[in-house]
């Protein structure tokens, strides 16, 4: 990236009026309050007019598929992420906010960025998040009659319950769990 991520995160945090920002792994990320979600995008939109994507993360300690988070003090919540950029400077920043699981709703960004329309429809069907003010919050990918929200951590992969994925029998134990590892990159294929 052309811009220094930590300076960028600090500057954007100043623009949207937040004091929570990070630049771990070179990804500038600024956290805002969910009440200021729309306002933050309106303010930042003048400087960062390129709308890259919007998505959500389901933070949960109990999961139906995959591995749960390593630390057990993960706060149960949905995290909404959006990614804005500036095409002249090449800057890129991720905005994030938390919403409670018992009331998963947030203001829609469709009035600020037209591109948020499909991204919000996807997040709505996959995570069950209500984007207030969205003009057409219907299913995007899934059939109309589909029930449930597949990307929630409580949603099982039914096809894998019926028939386990063949690859699972090949899973080797971690080296520190059993036996020495072979640190031979030529074997990795």
């Amino acid at each position: 990236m052309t811009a220094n991520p930590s300076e960028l995160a600090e500057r954007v945090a100043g623009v949207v009026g937040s004091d929570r920002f990070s630049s771990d792994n070179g990804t500038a990320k600024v956290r805002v309050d969910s009440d200021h979600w729309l306002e933050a995008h309106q303010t930042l939109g003048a400087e960062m007019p390129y709308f890259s994507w919007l998505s959500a993360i389901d933070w949960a300690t109990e999961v139906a598929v995959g591995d749960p988070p390593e630390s057990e003090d993960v706060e149960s919540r949905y995290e909404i992420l959006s990614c804005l950029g500036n095409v002249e400077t090449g800057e890129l920043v991720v905005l994030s906010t938390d919403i409670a699981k018992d009331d998963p709703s947030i203001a829609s960004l469709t009035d600020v960025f037209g591109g948020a329309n499909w991204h919000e429809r996807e997040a709505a069907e996959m995570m069950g998040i209500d984007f207030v003010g969205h003009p057409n919050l219907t299913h995007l990918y899934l059939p109309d009659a589909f029930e449930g929200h597949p990307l929630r951590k409580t949603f099982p992969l039914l096809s894998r319950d019926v028939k386990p994925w063949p690859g699972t029998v090949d899973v080797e134990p971690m080296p520190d769990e059993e036996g020495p590892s072979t640190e031979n990159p030529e074997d990795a294929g």
Partner: protein
Amino acid sequence: MTAVDRHRLSMHHSEVQVSVELQTPDMTLNLGPQHPSTHGVLRLIARVDGEVIEEVEPVIGYMHRGYEKIAEVRTYPQITALVNRIDWVSGFANEIPFMVATERLMGLDVPERAQYIRLILTEMARISSHLVFLSSFPLELGAATPLMHALRERERVLDLIEGVTGGRFHPNFNRVGGVKPAAGAGSTQKKVIQDLPIEFLEQSRQAMQYVRDVCDDLKDLVVGNEIFMERTKGIGIIPVDKALAFGVSGPNLRASGVPFDIRKTDDYLPYSNFEFDVATGENGDCFDRYTVRLEEVIQASRIIDQAIDSIPSGELQAKVPRIFKVPQGEIYVRAENPKGEMGYYIVSEGGRGPYRLKIRSASFSNLSVLPWLLQGQLVPDVIAILGSLDFVLGDVDR
């Protein structure tokens, strides 16, 4: 001149005795899901008034494979095989941002030779993807000849990719920390004797010359063709502000005059070592979207020529344990793929697989501008506009 004006004008010229005030009731026109002009399974529900589109609603999801969910139950090396099926016309390029993101989370330094091989194959994927567009787009407008010319040279490029990776479309060639030894070099051998096929560099140089020659052919056959110009110039204009708000990226954005190229702004591969120009258009119409891609093929061949001349020797992979966990952290890495910005947001919770993987695909955002773009256009222009956006439904639906 708007599309509607043009329509009325042409009726006037041909002296057709039809009043433009003619009342035409609203009609719903269904395009697809199975239709040659829709590039896969895309359905458009259009409300038309005569020949003019009033409203269009794309229906997608016929190719939805749920990669973001599957990724949560797979390990990082297994996900490599998934991601090159997202945009299958440029399979190799899809792997790069995912690999770079994983490597940065793990703090790995990828050997320079591996980075150069990645770069060469990415640019070959770009050439192959663009040649498909450059030849199939005229086909949709009724010109069949360019297809034969361009696909012949594309096959040459695909042969080179296949020679290295073993796969024409789904290479699955990257490994966390580098690339694997080339196909035929014996991936199970303890010692890597040969990492690129014999004469790969020489054949690449030849192939690039053929590619540039076919670009000259396409300039004569297509760009200078009056019918093609009539069908594409001033059609489907995307203004810069709309393009940015909808997240339109890649050649579609550059055709609108924005010189935004992630190869220039980010450092996911060593593009800063090479000289190349960012092709831009002026009007953002279908014609510019064609010429920008044509120029990008030539620039990509320039990059490959330079990379072949300067490829360093050395290791192919960083030292990575056969089985590994990725440290806790979040990262977003994007890359300039043939279709536009492709990125992966990885949330790692210290496991063998990601806790959450968000796939940002170029075609999804490029296609989302369609309901806005098609308003007020003529039905025959829909095909030109759809084709000019160069999307792949696998990249839209993921």
